[in-house]
């Protein structure tokens, strides 16, 4: 294969710089020692990170996001594992329709989902509650959990299971001691990707969150609507750091390219 010429490398450099610039500028401004938006020129300061502690609504929103992300992705995985095993192993009538239904939250704009959930939860009397938010997040992150579990279950070597059955393993033992350990990397990656999706969701959550159940992206969004100051950059930098940590873990566990390739084409 031919290698890249100088022109291609210049294009590539500019491309990468533009891709990173907005993220870098947020992280740099977060360390400004000044009281206004500026790039730190003389020294780095943690004052705006310390200031976050004086805004309990940001701290509270962080815990809501963390709890919501962990819980909704866990519930999504619990629903996704049996569904993925069924879809991967049995060819039954309606299988393709089921798979399409389960992946449909990827196709439906989140603004429509937010409206639908808001309407539904208000009608059944759980509008603005954490429970409603949780159920909504489970549905939205379910496709991510399902897809990675499905990939693991499809690629699994069935002969190991057959060996276990021939040695007298019952259904539950078979699942707990053989099947689950084999698909576990896929399940954990599905959980992690689902967590990131829940942790980052703004468009749907902004319809459902009320002052007590605001998530961090919602809090940040509402804050930015009023004014942009170094405080919101230090909060963003913290969010970026958390996501990066999850990304690195995901890369170690499973390979980021496989995770992202799964995320690529919605609804197919």
């Amino acid at each position, binding site marked *: 294969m*031919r290698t*890249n010429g100088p022109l*291609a490398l210049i294009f590539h450099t500019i*491309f990468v710089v533009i*891709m990173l610039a907005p993220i870098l500028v947020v992280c740099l401004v977060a360390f400004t020692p000044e009281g206004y938006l500026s790039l730190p020129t003389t020294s780095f300061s943690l004052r705006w990170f310390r200031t976050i502690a004086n805004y309990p609504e940001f701290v509270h929103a962080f815990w809501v996001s963390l709890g919501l992300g962990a819980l909704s992705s866990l519930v999504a995985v619990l*629903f996704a594992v049996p569904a993925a095993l069924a879809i991967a192993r049995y060819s*039954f009538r309606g299988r393709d329709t089921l798979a399409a239904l389960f992946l449909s939250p990827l196709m439906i704009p989140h603004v429509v989902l937010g409206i639908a959930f808001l309407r539904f939860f208000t009608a059944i009397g759980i509008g603005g509650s954490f429970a409603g938010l949780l159920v909504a997040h489970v549905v939205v992150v379910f496709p991510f959990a399902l897809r990675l579990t499905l990939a693991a279950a499809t690629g699994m070597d069935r002969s190991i299971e057959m060996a276990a059955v021939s040695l007298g393993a019952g259904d539950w033992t078979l699942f707990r001691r053989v099947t689950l350990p084999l698909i576990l990397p896929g399940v954990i990656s599905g959980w992690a990707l689902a967590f990131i999706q829940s942790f980052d969701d703004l468009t749907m959550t902004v*319809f459902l969150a009320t002052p007590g159940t605001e998530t961090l992206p919602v809090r*940040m969004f509402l804050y930015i609507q009023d004014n942009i100051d170094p405080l919101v950059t230090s909060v963003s930098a913290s969010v970026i750091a958390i996501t990066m940590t999850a990304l690195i873990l995901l890369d170690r566990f499973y390979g980021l390219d496989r995770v992202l390739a799964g995320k690529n*084409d919605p609804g197919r």
Partner: protein
Amino acid sequence: MSAAPATDGRDARTAWLLTAPALMLFVGVLVIPLAMTVMLSFHDWGQYKGIEPVFILKNWHEVATDPYFAEMFWRTFRIALLTTLITAVLGAPEAYILNRMSGRWKSFFLLVILGPLLISVVARTLGWALLFGGNNGLVNKLLMSLGLIGSPLPFMFTETGVVIALAHVMMPFMVLSVWAALQRVDPQIENAALSLGAGPFTIIRRIVLPQIMPGVLSGAIIVFSLSASAFATPAIIGGRRLKVAATLAYDEFLNTLNWPLGAAVAVLLLVALVLIVVGSNALIERRYAEVFR
């Protein structure tokens, strides 16, 4: 998946039993709410009486006839189309360049370009708001020092700014899609063309482009549908006056409280997107049937 063994009745029962919890969740919390939203768009609403559960076409009539909505939907799709074009024109060459890099660099830059996909959209858009920031924002300073522009351009609260920030947010989807298409291309074909005397531009135009076109097009569908329904970026960069479908629906629901009208806007957006996505998918699959075999 088609390799799964044929099933008897008992297996089918097991399969349905295993999918039952997820199926009940989806019917209860996705299908029913969506149906209720479609119903909502036919309800009446008044400043003092609130929502009246009747069946009228008032909201749909308003959306169809009021030029405000036509302008807003036109703006939404214009922004989505421009965003799609920019990601295709810049993302496809970048994917091609990435694919020609050696192993270690390739995975490093792939991570750098695709990683932002998982970083909060609010944080990424905030970055653009900082870069644009008024008349002496960094972007304007850079463009002026390069002599490309004489006076500062307005980026905040303009469609230009929204399109730039949105293109940045959506770029990883395009790179990923073209990248996936490139993985199916045999590099020897390029070498064959080279040995037969083709120049670099002929190779790009006659060999590479036709082969990655399905990837560009499916990337374009993803980018277009996500851009047309984007909320955070138009809301932050576009501000309160530059409304697109998603931000207008948000306003109707949480500020004006005219839920039925907001529901009509959202349902129309959903229907338009489904038609566009399904239609172009069908077109692409017919045009490139051999690639999808």
